[in-house]
């Protein structure tokens, strides 16, 4: 799993590539939480290159969005492949996370400051 983070104005776009599983999820969680702890509480997670996630990945996303919202921000998801989306839906995450078809759309959803 690779993680690449880019700033798009007041939003951080987190691009993940590969598999998020029981071994890699901890790296994802610590990376996301470090950004939130540094005050970057508006996150868009680009999932276009994620071909797999288990519940370990869901736990990392859940912990991050909780902390981001607690600090007044949010974490939004974009460009999810069908298998990963199905996991999110089966876990009830599709109703508590904001999901967008494209990264640009998710970034714009935060609006201008």
């Amino acid at each position: 799993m690779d993680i690449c983070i880019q700033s798009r104005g007041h939003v951080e776009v987190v691009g993940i590539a590969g598999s998020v599983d029981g071994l890699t999820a901890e790296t994802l969680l610590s990376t996301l939480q470090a950004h939130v702890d540094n005050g970057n509480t508006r996150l868009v997670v680009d999932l276009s290159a994620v071909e797999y996630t288990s519940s370990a990945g869901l736990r990392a996303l859940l912990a991050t969005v909780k902390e981001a919202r607690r600090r007044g921000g949010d974490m939004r998801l974009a460009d999810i492949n069908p298998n990963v989306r199905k996991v999110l839906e089966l876990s009830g995450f599709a109703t508590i996370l904001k999901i967008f078809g494209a990264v640009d759309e998710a970034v714009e959803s935060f609006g201008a400051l």
Partner: protein
Amino acid sequence: MTTPSPAVGVRSFRAVAMADLPALAAFVDTACDGFGADGEVRFAMRLAVEEVFTNIIEHGYRGRGPVLVEVDGGPRCVRVRLSDEAPAFDPADAPVPDLESPLRDRDPGGLGWHLVRQLMDEVEHRLRPAPPRGNTYILVKQLPALAPDA
């Protein structure tokens, strides 16, 4: 319990720790592919196997212990058995996640077994009393029906 028929051989893999997860995932993917599973079925089986394996290693053994993973199948389904030597655990006792609660109340506990039950067509747990004592978890996923010849 569905019986894959005709069987075309059992493929097996031995794992002992979370570090074996990538090799286990590759084994399951290749084995299921060999039984004609498409991408969606392979995804579901990889996920279910990871969830069960993780539960065995983290909760059953609390770190490390032998897990035998066997895959077989036939024209209609693929089946995976995971056998451990850990204390008895019936997945029916796993907590049921509340998928309706607001975000602040969400607890990720129980998501793993929930996903296994949602993605598999059959989930069975057996206790093995004879040595080596332990649990065997059996996961079955039906293959999509073959399209009739034109």
